[in-house]
């Protein structure tokens, strides 16, 4: 147990919602209705995360990802099951748990909107009671990892989305928490900014041995940062292992790219066990001229897509 930063055992979460009826008449009915139904957002999820690990926590929209994150951060209480963050039950002592975690929600800044970043940092230092030398070391570390000069004196409201995300990530690590939760940290960012953010996360994780739980829809994040991924769908955990393992599971899959006569690339995913690649090429060649061919291993994106679509079972 000691080695785990996060332990979840058979965690469930139910919500009670009003059964709504359709149409104008339904709306008037609902005004007096007491017809509730229970929705299980998370069902029997168990998970162990080692210290210093970065895991990708993936799943389609509405799969129960954010509900799980909210339980891990102590905001929501699970209906049943056990959660230990850093050896403690998060929702039982929210304040204590907050000292050990950092949270970043992409697009939702948690910093003081009108304060310059450095002032936000100073307030956070006070809130988390970070000793002065540790705080200074952290700022030095930040300086070595990213160029913070252009943003350090800028109010958050005047920052670009990328700068804001960067600031939020820095703020989340400031008190050197054991676990940091990153919810879609690269959403809406341009390619170079994404790169910057990823290398920052990687650098901080390496320097401070911080555990990172990353939820994202961007497989670029996963490829760059995570060895291990956990996939949740309809509230149930459907996959929990290394990406490499997953890829080898789909080992017989290849992506075939063909450049056609009009210079456009056509790609298709082929399971070698069932289809012979040469057959596909030859068939295509009868229709049109093929100028170039490239064969690739299945990409993470495609693996995840296959899993979401239910092909992994």
């Amino acid at each position: 147990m000691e080695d785990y930063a996060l332990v979840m055992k058979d965690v469930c979460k139910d919500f009670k919602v009003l059964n709504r009826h359709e149409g104008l008449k339904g709306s008037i009915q609902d005004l007096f209705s007491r017809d509730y139904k229970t929705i299980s957002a998370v069902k029997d999820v168990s998970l162990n995360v080692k210290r210093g690990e970065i895991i990708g926590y993936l799943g389609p929209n509405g799969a129960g990802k954010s509900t799980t994150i909210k339980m891990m951060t102590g905001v929501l209480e699970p209906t049943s099951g056990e959660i230990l963050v850093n050896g403690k039950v998060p929702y039982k002592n929210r304040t204590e748990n907050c000292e050990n975690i950092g949270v970043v929600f992409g697009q939702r800044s948690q910093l003081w909107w009108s304060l310059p970043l450095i002032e936000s940092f100073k307030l956070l230092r006070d809130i988390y009671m970070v000793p002065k030398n540790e705080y200074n070391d952290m700022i030095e570390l930040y300086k070595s990892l990213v160029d913070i000069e252009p943003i350090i004196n800028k109010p958050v409201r005047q920052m670009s989305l990328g700068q804001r995300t960067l600031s939020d990530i820095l703020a989340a690590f400031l008190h050197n928490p054991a676990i940091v939760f990153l919810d879609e940290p690269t959403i809406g960012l341009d390619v170079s900014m994404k790169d910057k953010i990823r290398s920052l996360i990687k650098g901080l994780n390496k320097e401070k041995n911080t555990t990172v739980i990353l939820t994202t829809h961007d497989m670029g994040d996963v490829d760059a940062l995570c060895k291990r991924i956990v996939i949740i769908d309809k509230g149930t955990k459907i996959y929990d292992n290394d990406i490499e393992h997953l890829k080898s599971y789909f080992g017989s899959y290849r992506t075939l790219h063909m450049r056609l006569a009009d210079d456009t690339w056509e790609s298709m995913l082929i399971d070698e066990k069932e289809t012979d690649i040469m057959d596909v090429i030859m068939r295509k060649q009868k229709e049109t001229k093929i100028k170039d061919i490239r064969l690739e291993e299945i990409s993470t994106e495609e693996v995840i897509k296959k899993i979401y679509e239910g092909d992994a079972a």
Partner: protein
Amino acid sequence: MEHVRGLAFYTKLYRKILVQDLKTKMSYRADFIISTIGMIMTNLSGFVTFLILFRNFPTINGWDYYHMLFLYGFSLVALTPVQCFFDNNWNLRFMVYSGDFIKYCFRPVNVFFYFISEVFDVKGLGQLAFGIGTLVYSWIHIGLPVSFMIILKLIVFLITASLFMIALMNAAAATCFWIKNSGYVMVIMFRFKDFAKYPASIFSGIFKVIFTFVIPIAFVAYYPSLVILDPDNVPLLSLLSPVLGILFFYLSYKFWMLGVRKYDFTGS
């Protein structure tokens, strides 16, 4: 690594946030001017309403012009803390609705404190000046004595009165954790306070009880001010008002925090 966060911690933190906030406020001149104008207009129109009323009706329930003016000034001063320190309650509804409220739950400090500390509203100070002016003016005309004791009493009971107002607005704001379109609750509660400046003796029966103990607008000016206005004849409720004020504030805080816990953060 566990930290204990006591009163000293919160006081120091609040002071720091306040200083930072004021610094940035200065850089948004237009906003400051507009809200100051807004504040002056509100007070002026409140005063005009008051004057029009007294032009038509010289006394209300045995209260003459200057005594009513005293009550009016008293309620204005008592309203200042809620304007200055608890103004962020007006934003709560939007935060909860959009799901942004969740960000206040990730810090190792009291959620209510963290949320409320975010906004300090300078414009409330204009109202304070207006209220003090009215209070002094009516004080002189009524011919009330001036002594250290009476000023001390005034301050204690002004704070008492503002505790009730804070409690009312806290509770009104917190309804948004249960009710989705609760904007109106705050709006109407803010209008209720307009009745705080009239003597609570106008109420009778069950409503006297309601406006004293359930929606305690009778405590926002009437009961606490009697200690100053009628020192020989102070009702028990006036004497108890500081204790009740603390109790109401505590209950409203508990209600607010219960809302945070009940709220399922589904908004996203």
